[in-house]
């Protein structure tokens, strides 16, 4: 470590604890309390990365979240490496490994640097303009662009870290732990309010906490000493929760805020183990105090991006807080008093300040006088016209500004320096204020946008420098005054503070500083990360872009990971100057959350893997698992898909199951079907209105299939409903539609038909359903329920019986989705697995075969039964499905009835459901395949598509269902299914392929 860059005295860094870390493979040392950036600077490393477009060498420029250049990759573990991290925000820990990004093969020798020399050929919009033509070449261009650009590498393995979410409710949330945030927190806590204070740093006090200067005093103490006492005192308030290392990401309406707390990112690998890495706080605050402070602006001059050029206030923080000298010979360039604070700090630490170049003509503030007294050379009314040094600044060229500030005059002076601090004034951090819906106003005097308190949501307030109060006395007075009103306070402990501070007397602002060269020959960078210069902005304006939002996107200014925190104001200023517009009228670009990037981990929290969504399992699920079932997801349900035996493929298993169900007996777990219990004196009338067919005359103990439409006449759901009693029905819905059907029925009951006496209860989980089908199903049920008379006379198809299995009540329906004689046993779910096993045992002698959803689909397709959502897609009416028989024509009304004879729904050339047989009976069509009549006619006219397709083991041939335009009239017609390698000939048929006479139902 170059010892001479670290000064010895420090309150904030523990220089007794040495920490080793690696940067680009080089082993380096820092101290506890360092950031990666401060430790690199202490090792005399400025060059950290390359810029995005020109691959220019770039160094650490700031000390906070606005850092555009020092973007690094942390770690190289494939599951935890993190790209695009700001070195200024990374707390140093033992074993930290960081790498430069966007350079190849290395940061010191980067091949892409050639772009810098090609830069005249790479103006704004270059990529848009160049790579548009020919369109088919894009894929080739893209490969090279992606290869040479890019910001870091994504992890390639799943994240192994733990993340968490937590809700918090409070009376007052204070965002920012600088002096105004501390004052606000203290006043809120003193009043007894439930208060949360968050700050993104690992300490409180903002920039005041290291401002040890007798130009700034509160109650006769230097401001840092006074504030330290106030902070120490905060722990006495049990109603105040302080969250450090917590950055506010988003400020939504109704004071709903998201903040990310870093819990382990500052710890070494051992200390991190089994701990939660980051926590996303979801905060609902009655009132919010925004005290986010302000960010120093760069100045826009030729070659203002070299490594070694920092913001002046950052140089001050590195020396005052971290005890690190950013250089040995520092020059400062400013348009305001801030740089003088830096000069005083540097001088106090024994760092040589060469010259202060100030674009103002003079200033007489306390700070300036103090610097003059020290004897530092100040060049008034001068500007920097160029900087020299490729990987590190070596010198600057300075010239006098003309009176109008638009050009330079006089002799060029060369000043040697290894570091340059620049200060272009301050930008209030209004991001969160505007995110919450507040409107900004422009303050001409300071060239800043500040919150317009008249256009602010009422339950929040901005205080401190984010509200445009830059002088310490104004800041304190206004903060206290505004918080008193906001929190309705009477007298406060801060009513008689005595504040002394240096006041800025002179202002001069030039958005784009002139050079001795033409603008076209210079590189005044605005957005350092995206490499957009003032030239690009002017080019965009010349090319006709006027809106700030368009200029931003065309030049990519403000579109880097720093989201324009440094560059946006200058872009606006240059646009305003060039077009002769007022900045206030121009407005700003939209500030969108998050304020700083969030990790995906913190966004998803614990909702990963098996916790991503709820998993619903039937009561019989464990049996399926034990019996080697493969499962498929149906909504949130895990449904048994098929039960392979002895290494069977899916096709083999399904063929065997399908055959067995028709030859002997099959058993299906149908518990996932939605079940809605419907009771009330108007239950029949209600069903009349929600189903297309009539229900009033359905006898007690009988079942009926119903089709439910949307109000637009399209099929929505279907299922069998059973009349259990005079005023009692149980409706079944599709598995996936259960929740939506219940919601829809509740909606109609509550809003359109509140006069109906009907009660709906979902009982899907309470009852399990075991379906036994096939010619031997009767024998099996007879064995399980010997008392039940299963004769067709007593228990015909489409009827139900209350019964008991071992003294447990159950409902047995004789309904069929396979076309076979079949029974559905509905029983309380906690008995379901036992009953299932009982059925298996009873069915053993009849070769009972468990089957899953795939066989169920195949069997019903043989019978031409539809599956809503597979054969229908929300664009088919009952008539399109050839199910006109189910429409109660005599009924006055039902949901969707009027839509069935709209001009569009009565068209005869609508897509309609048909059956398909392939010319080659072994050829199985692909579901979703298109159907055409004439393959040679161009463009090929697509008449429809295949919705269901299987090889039927019972018919020994391929069968399919499809929707085809005018399909009803096309029976017997030959069509073509064009596939990648061949055309398949098919014939349109009836939708029922098997047992057209329904003889098997009573077999």
């Amino acid at each position: 470590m170059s010892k001479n860059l670290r000064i010895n005295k420090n309150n904030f860094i523990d220089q007794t604890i040495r920490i080793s870390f690696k940067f680009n493979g080089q082993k380096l040392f820092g101290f506890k309390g360092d950031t990666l950036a401060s430790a690199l600077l202490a090792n005399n490393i400025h060059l950290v990365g390359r810029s995005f477009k020109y691959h220019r060498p770039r160094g650490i420029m700031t000390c906070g979240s606005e850092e555009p250049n020092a973007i690094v990759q942390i770690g190289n573990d494939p599951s935890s490496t993190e790209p695009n991290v700001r070195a200024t925000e990374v707390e140093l820990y033992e074993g930290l490994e960081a790498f430069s990004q966007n350079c190849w093969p290395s940061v010191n020798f980067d091949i892409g640097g050639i772009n810098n020399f090609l830069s005249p050929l790479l103006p704004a919009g270059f990529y848009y303009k160049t790579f548009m033509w020919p369109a088919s070449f894009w894929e080739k261009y893209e490969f090279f662009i992606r290869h040479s650009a890019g910001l870091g590498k994504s992890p390639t393995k799943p994240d192994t870290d733990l993340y968490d979410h937590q809700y918090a409710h409070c009376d007052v949330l204070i965002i920012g732990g600088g002096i105004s945030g501390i004052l606000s927190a203290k006043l809120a806590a003193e009043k007894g309010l439930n208060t949360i204070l968050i700050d993104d740093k690992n300490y409180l006090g903002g920039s005041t906490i290291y401002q040890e200067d007798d130009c700034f005093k509160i109650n006769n103490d230097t401001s840092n000493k006074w504030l330290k006492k106030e902070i120490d005192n905060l722990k006495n308030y049990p109603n105040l929760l302080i969250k450090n290392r917590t950055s506010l990401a988003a400020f939504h309406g109704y004071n709903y805020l998201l903040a990310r707390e870093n819990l382990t990112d500052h710890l070494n690998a051992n200390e991190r183990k089994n701990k939660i890495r980051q926590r996303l706080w979801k905060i609902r605050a009655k009132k919010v105090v925004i005290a986010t402070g302000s960010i120093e602006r760069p100045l826009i001059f030729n070659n203002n991006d070299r490594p070694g050029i920092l913001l002046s206030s950052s140089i001050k923080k590195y020396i005052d807080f971290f005890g690190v000298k950013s250089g040995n010979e520092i020059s400062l360039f400013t348009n305001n008093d801030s740089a003088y604070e830096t000069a005083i700090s540097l001088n106090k630490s024994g760092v040589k300040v060469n010259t202060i170049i100030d674009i103002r003509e003079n200033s007489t503030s306390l700070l300036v006088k103090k610097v003059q007294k020290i004897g530092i050379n100040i060049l008034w009314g001068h500007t920097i016209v160029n900087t020299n040094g490729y990987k590190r600044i070596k010198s600057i060229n300075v010239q006098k500004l003309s009176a109008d500030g638009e050009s330079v005059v006089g002799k060029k002076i060369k000043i040697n320096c290894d570091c340059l601090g620049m200060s272009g004034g301050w930008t209030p951090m209004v991001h969160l204020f505007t995110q919450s819906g507040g409107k900004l106003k422009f303050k001409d005097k300071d060239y800043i946008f500040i919150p317009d308190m008249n256009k602010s949501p009422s339950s929040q307030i901005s205080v401190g420098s984010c509200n445009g109060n830059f002088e310490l006395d104004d800041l304190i007075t206004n903060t206290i005054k505004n918080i008193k009103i906001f929190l309705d306070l009477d007298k406060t402990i801060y009513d008689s503070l005595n504040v002394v501070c240096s006041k800025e007397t002179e202002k001069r602002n030039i958005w784009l500083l002139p050079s001795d060269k033409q603008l076209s020959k210079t590189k005044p960078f605005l957005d350092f990360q995206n490499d957009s210069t003032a030239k690009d902005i002017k080019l965009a304006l010349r090319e006709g872009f006027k809106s700030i939002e368009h200029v931003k996107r065309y030049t990519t200014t403000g579109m880097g990971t720093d989201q324009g925190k440094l560059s946006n104001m200058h872009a606006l200023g240059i646009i305003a100057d060039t077009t002769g517009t007022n900045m206030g009228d121009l407005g700003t670009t939209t500030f969108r959350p998050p304020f700083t990037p969030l990790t995906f981990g913190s966004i998803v929290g614990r909702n990963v893997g098996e916790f991503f969504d709820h998993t619903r399992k039937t009561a019989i699920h464990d049996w399926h698992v034990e019996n080697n079932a493969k499962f498929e997801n149906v909504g949130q349900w895990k449904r048994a898909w098929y039960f392979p035996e002895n290494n069977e493929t899916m096709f083999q298993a399904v063929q065997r199951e399908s055959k067995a169900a028709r030859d002997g007996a099959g058993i299906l777990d149908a518990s996932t079907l939605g079940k809605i219990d419907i009771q009330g004196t108007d239950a029949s009338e209600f069903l009349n209105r929600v189903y297309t067919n009539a229900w009033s005359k359905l006898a007690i103990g009988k079942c009926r299939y119903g089709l439910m439409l949307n109000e637009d006449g399209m099929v929505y759901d279907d299922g069998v409903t059973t009349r259990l009693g005079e005023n009692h029905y149980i409706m079944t819905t599709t598995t996936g539609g259960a929740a939506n059907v219940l919601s829809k029925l509740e909606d109609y009951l509550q809003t359109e038909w509140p006069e109906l006496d009907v009660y709906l209860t979902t009982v899907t989980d309470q009852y399990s359903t075991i379906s036994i089908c096939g010619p031997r199903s009767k024998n099996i049920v007879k064995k399980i329920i010997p008392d039940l008379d299963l004769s067709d006379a007593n228990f015909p198809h489409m009827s139900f019986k209350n019964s008991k299995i071992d003294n447990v009540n159950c409902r047995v329906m004789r309904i069929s989705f396979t076309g076979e004689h079949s029974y559905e046993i509905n029983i309380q779910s906690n008995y379901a697995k036992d009953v299932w096993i009982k059925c298996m045992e009873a069915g053993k002698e009849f070769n009972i075969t468990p089957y899953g959803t795939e066989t169920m689909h195949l069997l019903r397709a043989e019978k031409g039964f539809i599956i809503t959502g597979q054969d229908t897609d929300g664009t088919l009416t009952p008539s399109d499905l050839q199910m006109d028989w189910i429409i109660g024509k005599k009924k006055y009304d039902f949901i969707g009835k009027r839509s069935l004879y709209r001009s569009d729904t009565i068209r005869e050339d609508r897509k309609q459901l048909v059956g398909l047989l392939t010319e080659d009976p072994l050829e199985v069509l692909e579901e979703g395949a298109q159907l055409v009549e004439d393959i040679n006619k161009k463009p090929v006219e697509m008449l429809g598509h295949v919705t269901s397709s299987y090889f039927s083991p019972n018919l020994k041939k391929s069968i399919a269902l499809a929707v085809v335009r005018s399909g009803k009239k096309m029976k017997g017609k030959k069509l073509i299914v064009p596939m990648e390698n061949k055309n398949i000939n098919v014939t349109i048929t009836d939708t029922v392929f098997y047992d057209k006479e329904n003889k098997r139902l009573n077999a």
Partner: protein
Amino acid sequence: MFIINCPYCGERDQSEFSCGGEAHIERPKQPTELSDDQWAEYLFMRKNIKGIQFERWNHAHGCRKWFNVVRDTSNDKIHAIYKMGERPPLK
């Protein structure tokens, strides 16, 4: 994300509710007597106002009751909440 004061349960987070679109569009009592245009007006046409809008909301993850909300869609400010069947506040 805003807070909705369910008339049956009290203040709850928006995530518990679902919006049912524009309120006070009554299902015609005699749909069969409507022309295609009249039926289409009921079925498809919605105002989608930027500003004060009368909406139906359902406390889907709560009491499952439907009710009406008067909301400014430009800033999510809720001006009134009233039960189904109750008279809407003056428009």
